[in-house]
């Protein structure tokens, strides 16, 4: 990770130092105007949030919403977590097996799993997120029909798994095979799109903390998914939230489960690496 605020300025500064070391004053004199020029362009380019300035959307919540997230008996997402526990122990499919039959106590076996997804799948040769992993397991181990995206049961099971990682830091992806997919996610994050011709980064990297239609623009760290959103009056996945923003930019959304969404999820998790999992979170 670079320590400087702007990637492009950071590159220029490094070039400058290298140049100064090798060729001396003449090149330094040449490099200097280049920095000024790039610095002038900087407001037009995406600015990455320094690691120590990252903050969860939780910190911008009102007192009542914070109290809702903090107390399991006040957090409506608890209903999904409890239903998820039921599904975990329920036999399903023609294999007549439950998740618990193989994985045992989720509090042990699933601890930290949500903190390291999306993860690379050997057979598919691409990363899969937690929802797709659940459906792959259903197909391969239980011989059961997959859950539909955003269905109650899939959200419930995802919330139950996510809950087992609460308080743990989001893991840094060490698998080199994930690299191109993280880069793809970053490119999508920074790509302008839609009728408004905006990118995710313009709000969440460059203008976080400012207001959009009276609401504070968050940094967009996926620390609490699936979240209970008061606006939805329901639990929803990270992909649903991404779809929300994309439609807001008047762009065409990707399909649920599409490689673009998974790449974005993966990039966002890496952007939030080391931050604490809050699942299930509450947001306005």
């Amino acid at each position, binding site marked *: 990770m670079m320590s400087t605020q702007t990637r492009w300025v950071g590159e220029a500064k490094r070039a400058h130092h290298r140049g100064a070391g090798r060729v001396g004053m003449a090149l330094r004199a040449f490099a200097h105007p280049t920095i000024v020029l790039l610095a002038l362009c900087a407001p037009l380019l995406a600015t990455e949030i320094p690691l120590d300035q990252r903050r969860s959307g939780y910190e911008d919540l009102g007192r009542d919403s914070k109290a809702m997230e903090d107390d399991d*008996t006040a957090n*409506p997402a*608890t209903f999904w977590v409890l239903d998820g526990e039921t599904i975990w122990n329920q036999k399903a499919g023609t294999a007549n097996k439950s998740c618990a039959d193989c994985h045992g106590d989720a509090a042990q076996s699933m601890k930290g799993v949500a903190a390291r997804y999306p993860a690379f799948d050997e057979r598919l040769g691409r990363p899969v997120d937690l929802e797709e992993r659940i459906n792959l397991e259903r197909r391969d181990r239980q011989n059961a029909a997959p859950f539909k995206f955003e269905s109650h049961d899939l959200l419930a099971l995802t919330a139950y798994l996510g809950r087992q990682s609460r308080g743990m830091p989001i893991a840094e992806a060490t698998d080199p095979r994930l690299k191109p997919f993280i880069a793809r996610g970053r490119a999508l994050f920074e790509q302008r799109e839609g009728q408004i011709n905006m990118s995710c980064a313009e709000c969440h990297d460059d203008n976080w903390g400012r207001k959009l239609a009276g609401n504070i623009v968050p940094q967009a760290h996926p620390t609490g998914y699936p979240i209970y959103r008061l606006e939805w009056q329901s639990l929803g996945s990270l992909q649903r939230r991404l779809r929300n923003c994309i439609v807001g930019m008047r762009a065409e959304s990707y399909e649920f489960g599409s490689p673009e969404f998974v790449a974005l999820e993966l990039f966002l998790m890496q952007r939030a690496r080391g931050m604490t999992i809050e699942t299930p979170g509450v947001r306005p």
Partner: protein
Amino acid sequence: MARALINVPQKVKSGQVIEIKTLISHIMETGFRHDNVGKPIPRNIITTFVARYNGEEIFRADLFPAIAANPFLSFHTVATESGTIEFEWTGDNGFHETGSAKITVE
């Protein structure tokens, strides 16, 4: 599958003011919405909530279509004696859900 979550302090001192928190899963469908072919979606809400402390009613609320899904209700009462606090939710389509919590007053 309706579920209710109830938060009542278990052990309190006599005369102490306590907060009671309840949360129930319910869609609270307003009756004002239409489905994707224009057909009205019938109203389906919780209409009444009652709390009783050893049989005596201590709190009652009427709920209306403007109340969001999964209604969260909290209120205060004075802990007078040990016993049971019972909760009852009733609503459209014969909806009926009960819950209870034990309380020990020292």
